[in-house]
């Protein structure tokens, strides 16, 4: 509130100094027209003295560094997918051979299917639970702090550690499940040995690992919902369910986008756990795309072919998150707070 009134005040003084306003508008016409709603604020920003502003050079080291290790490899992986490259020697250009092999590779078809299933199941499994727990944790309950602290613990464990823990817990010969099985009247409980059950274990372990993170996201999102909205709804006689449906859910839309993008990209690139828990098996029933890439590249040393698999991954992951970002306006970060 105070920020807004003060910026309006500066905006008013500005109208008295046409020279300053003219120069401000001249420097940045596009932004002034874009931010329509808070014209006073943007005019005030433009009027700020220009000394002390960093030149664009400040962004160069970060940009170069990131570009060299992340953006450049992105271009390279596209090129490498057109080459044949074994463990020794250097990549030889072979055109589209890898790609024509890739589109008919039944393992690739299966891997894409499994990756999409993992993504879908993870989203369906993780989103409601994260939202429920996050909104709960944003409330006023006692014990909330203690429970939240415990819920956070899986985030401290590496995915390697998590995979090892769950593998030990689910071991059919030694361990809790082997102990529990006979007491439930089951001869042997080998959940990692069955094709479907192994895949479901991967879905579950990924949820166990990542729900705390998404819960935190939803907690943060729910905390930022202005209480006045709920008070207004209460005065209007809206019940809890309607308040959730008409206030909480729409207000959380940015959080839902962020969380969903993270979930989708995370599931599409899920790798460590699969390598440690199932190594793609039994058979090929958990060979999702990243694992297929690892196997082709660093198991069989067909690095060109593996690059084609990897580039498919880039395309799918980037397209998905771009679409989600575009349709929900997440990139337009300044606008979320305006108008409140």
């Amino acid at each position, binding site marked *: 509130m105070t920020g807004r009134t003060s910026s309006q005040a500066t905006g008013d003084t500005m109208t008295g100094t046409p020279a300053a306003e003219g120069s401000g508008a001249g420097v940045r016409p596009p932004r002034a027209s874009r931010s329509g709603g808070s014209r006073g604020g943007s005019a005030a920003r433009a009027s700020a003295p220009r000394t002390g502003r*960093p030149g664009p050079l400040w962004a160069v080291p970060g940009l170069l560094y990131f570009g060299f290790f992340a953006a450049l490899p*992105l271009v390279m992986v596209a090129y490498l997918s057109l080459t044949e490259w074994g463990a020794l020697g250097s990549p030889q250009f072979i055109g589209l051979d890898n790609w024509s092999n890739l589109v008919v590779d039944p393992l690739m078809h299966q891997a894409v299917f499994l990756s999409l299933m993992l993504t879908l199941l993870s989203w369906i499994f993780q989103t409601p639970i994260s939202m429920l727990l996050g909104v709960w944790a944003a409330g006023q309950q006692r014990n909330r702090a203690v429970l939240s602290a415990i819920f956070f613990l899986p985030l401290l464990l*590496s995915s390697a550690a998590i995979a090892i823990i769950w593998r030990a817990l689910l071991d059919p010969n030694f361990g809790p499940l082997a102990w529990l099985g006979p007491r439930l009247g089951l001869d042997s409980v080998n959940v990692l040995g069955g094709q479907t059950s192994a895949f479901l274990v991967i879905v579950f372990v990924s949820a166990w690992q990542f729900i705390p993170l998404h819960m935190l996201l939803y907690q943060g999102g729910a905390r930022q919902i202005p209480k006045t909205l709920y008070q207004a709804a209460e005065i209007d006689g809206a019940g809890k369910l309607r308040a959730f449906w008409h206030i909480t859910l729409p207000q959380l839309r940015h959080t839902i986008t962020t969380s969903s993008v993270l979930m989708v990209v995370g599931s599409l690139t899920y790798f460590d756990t699969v390598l440690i828990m199932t190594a793609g098996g039994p058979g090929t029933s958990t060979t999702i795309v990243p694992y297929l890439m690892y196997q082709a590249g660093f198991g069989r040393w067909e690095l060109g072919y593996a690059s084609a698999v*990897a580039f498919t991954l880039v395309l799918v992951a980037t397209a998905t998150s771009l679409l989600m970002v575009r349709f929900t306006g997440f*990139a337009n970060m300044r606008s979320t707070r305006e108008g409140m």
Partner: protein
Amino acid sequence: MSIRLAERPASRQPSDNQGLAARWRRPGRQRPNLLGGLGALVWLAIVGVPLYALLVATVQRSENYTAEGPLTPPSDPTLDNYARAIENGVLQFVLNTAIVTVAVVAIVLVLASMTGFAVVRSRTRWTSGVFRMFLLGLAIPSQAVIIPVYLIIIEMDLYDTLTAIVLPTAAFALPVCVLILVGSMRDISEELYEAMALDGAGSVRTFLQLVVPLSKSGLSTIGVYAALQAWNGFLFPLILTQSPETRLITMGLFEFQGEYRVDVPGLLAAVVLATIPLFLVYLFARRSLVRGMMGVGGK
């Protein structure tokens, strides 16, 4: 507002009566979130029981591990498993990981704060393009570019060194860190910048005397975030190193899993040892970490 004020006395009662008082309030937001509470209890079991079983297993004698139930406290607790894990070189792996983590955090802090400063304060369209690029960079999965990274590291003659892990790990932590820092630097008020400018401060002085001190919480957040990435990283060590001298803790655990398949308590003890340092960071810097995670979604 008046409704809230009228309720005040009820919530001032001694804490034992609070639950009861809450139940008798008018329906609305103040009513306890029963569904959420129930879900929280279920999730507590799902998170708590495996972690408890983990801790119990690590103090269980190997020969008792299968015999005694997973949830009963061990009849004859021991620290032998931890001793065995340390004998197997866990401390060396932890040291390697610590070196990598410190280096990654240092690189990320310097580069992200400079980039963030430029994105927030520079008024050229170029820098908003930079910001957009980092936003897109969030979507580049390290798995997808591991093969070219492997090639780059070999060409730089860095294969099987700790530097080989540091460089890409820091690069892939950058987008999130820039995003978090931009969020926290935008909260610095315009008046402070104007005061600095009136003082005649250039961009370096503004950065060091205003931006860095006032984004301390953002900086500690990204520091912890980068540390977490480095400490728990798996793919880069897996692909870019191979010898025991450069082994990080995650790779150490992976190797143990293959070598000591039968010695589950020893393996799990190593898992616990690997997590203790992060747990300590969590105890002292939990707020920064949580805030950082929330900052990504909350803005």
